[in-house]
């Protein structure tokens, strides 16, 4: 009873917060976002903050983090950020066009990107929704609005700003766009971020998200990203999660793929507290291909949960998932991989693999494939392993003069390499290789170390 009462109280806290600040939310944003709020908050109210009893959040209790007290950022608050300072943390420095978001808001002092191909729009969702609503209106909440996830609904209710990118038909954006999501505040903060990416027909682009924190305080980010991959488009989305270990986040990404489109999503989780990544792909056009990779390296009390959901709604599509986790100390991981092949989605190829290495007895991994196949002419496979470092391989390396610590490192790097090698931006691949190695060596600067430098 108490548990239920607490749950109601916790959820009410968020609905009350919404109603009390409704006008503030509306003022700070655009009509396109504002008109979604009412339905969203009602949808949130129905389920509330999911606890253990929610099947989709079985391995990640969000009540724990949503129950903490945070300052809610309900209007834009100017924060000064020195990009050079941000780069002192391990934000990968690449030859990219950089866009900075602070606490979920587009940073006002971003340098305009003048060299983008004609028609490409990169900037603030709020601003574009106000100034060029025609670019936003057909897409915003089209995928996320179909979700029954209360956390996604909560995002829609509170969303005011985030990253926006539009690539017109036939346009190739050669230089990757690097979105640096910084959390910066002196006290615990709850942030909501809403991103929208639209890749037109036969377009190509690469986006790299880097999640970082600049202060050693509790954060909670509720982020939703909707991505539309047009017919024949090729889109890469890379995410590097490297926040402090008190920073928590729920990141829900929705991809819709049209015919012949090619999507690559790769998420590397290095540091962070509780992280839940929801990834939904809808195969809406035939011969679409999605390659989805994820890897995490956790220690202490980190908790990383990846939940994927691939909807094969039409025939002849390919989805391939490889998720790998290395868990040290008391960290906990989870992977749930749902694949749904609808009745007439014949000739579907859907593959899924989840491999995990536990380095201690107290680390814990939960893995759950869920295949729902309603078509009869398909190729689907799934596999999950949970194991330790291969002792035979370790001895083999040591018997060839390689010291134990180096040998372990080699094996863990090799384990991660299968994911890293699929990164299609070479300097990023090298950089992530390096970050992974540093992470494994324990040398990766915790973000809060920046303040101490």
């Amino acid at each position: 009873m108490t548990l239920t009462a607490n749950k109601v109280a916790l959820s009410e806290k968020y609905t009350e917060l919404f109603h009390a600040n409704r006008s503030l939310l509306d003022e700070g944003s655009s009509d396109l976002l504002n008109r979604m709020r009412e339905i969203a908050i009602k949808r949130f109210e129905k389920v509330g903050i999911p606890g253990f009893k929610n099947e989709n959040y079985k391995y990640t209790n969000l009540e724990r983090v949503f129950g903490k007290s945070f300052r809610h950022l309900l209007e834009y608050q100017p924060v000064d950020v020195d990009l050079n300072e941000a780069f002192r943390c391990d934000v990968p420095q690449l030859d990219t066009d950089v866009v900075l978001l602070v606490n979920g808001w587009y940073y006002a002092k971003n340098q305009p990107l003048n060299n983008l191909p004609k028609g490409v729009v990169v900037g603030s969702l709020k601003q574009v929704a106000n100034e060029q609503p025609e670019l936003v209106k057909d897409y915003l909440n089209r995928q996320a609005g179909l979700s029954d996830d209360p956390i996604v609904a909560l995002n829609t209710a509170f969303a005011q700003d985030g990253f926006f990118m539009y690539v017109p038909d036939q346009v190739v954006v050669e230089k990757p766009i690097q979105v640096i999501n910084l959390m910066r505040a002196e006290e615990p903060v709850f942030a909501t971020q809403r991103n929208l990416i639209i890749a037109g027909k036969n377009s190509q682009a690469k986006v790299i998200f880097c999640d970082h924190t600049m202060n050693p305080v509790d954060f909670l980010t509720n982020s939703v990203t909707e991505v539309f991959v047009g017919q024949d488009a090729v889109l890469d989305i890379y995410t590097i999660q490297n926040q402090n270990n008190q920073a928590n986040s729920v990141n829900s990404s929705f991809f819709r793929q049209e015919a012949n489109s090619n999507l690559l999503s790769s998420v590397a989780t290095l540091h962070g507290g509780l992280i839940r990544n929801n990834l939904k792909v809808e195969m809406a056009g035939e011969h679409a291909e999605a390659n989805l990779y994820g890897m995490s390296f956790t220690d202490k009390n980190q908790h990383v949960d990846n939940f994927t959901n691939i909807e094969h709604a039409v025939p002849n599509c390919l989805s391939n998932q490889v998720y790998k986790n290395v868990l040290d100390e008391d960290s906990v991981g989870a992977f749930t991989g749902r694949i749904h092949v609808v009745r007439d989605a014949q000739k579907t190829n859907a593959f899924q693999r989840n491999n995990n290495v536990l380095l201690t007895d107290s680390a814990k991994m939960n893995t759950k494939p869920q295949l729902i196949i309603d078509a009869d002419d398909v190729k689907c496979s799934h596999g999950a392993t949970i194991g330790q470092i291969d002792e035979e391989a370790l001895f083999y390396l040591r018997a060839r003069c390689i010291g134990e610590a180096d040998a372990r490192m080699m094996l863990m790097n090799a384990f991660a390499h299968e994911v890293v090698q699929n990164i299609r931006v070479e300097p990023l691949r090298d950089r992530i290789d390096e970050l992974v190695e540093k992470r494994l060596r324990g040398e990766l600067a915790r973000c809060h170390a920046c303040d101490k430098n």
Partner: protein
Amino acid sequence: MLTIKNLRVAIEGKEILKGINLEIKAGEVHAIMGPNGSGKSTLGNVLAGKEEYEILDGEVIYEGQDLLDLSAEDRARMGVFLGFQYPVEIPGVPMVNFIKTSVNEMRKFKGLEPLTAGEFLKLMREKKELVHLDSQLTNRSVNEGFSGGEKKKNEIFQMAMLEPKLAILDETDSGLDIDALRIVSDGVNALKHPERSTIVITHYQRLLDYIVPDFVHVLYQGQIVKSAGKELALELEEKGYDWLKNHSL
């Protein structure tokens, strides 16, 4: 070079080696033969430093040092080489990186500078030819997708790269066809040196036609029950291990 005195070893509480005594001098080739389960591989693994074994008694002196006190990597750096019976596949670790790290770790231990890229490639080309190792194989991950014969050749290739003082070849002949056996043996023989000793562990006499031993020891139920010259191998082949069982009783 190597003196083993009364070595007793157990695994999971079961005694496998029950008092081994062996003396190997520089330049000698010793063959250790015996039926399955007699402890041959255990002896090789213990000498190389595999950790799951429990040393109950005895000592192993290698070049004046107690070998059993050293880590597997230090033994390797000091020149002890184990050619594995079943070389493991290590996906994701490229052969080239592996060999390079291995060679340079050994050089570091000896106080030598790492090889330059050019020197390393030259050395690798040379040694690959020695065992007719397909060039493509060194572009793969360690042993990944190698055939049985390729794995064994790869072991000898690594031995050639590291030039060990004491090579222990654990059933290098098992699963090799006669051509591969000849190539592998030629490789081993090419590395023969007055300062280098070899322990050949094998079940069959055939390998010893190619790698001619100075001494043959028969290991049976954890003990060396007979030692003699190379003629012992032929006698064993002819009469079978059963002869030995009766003989030892």
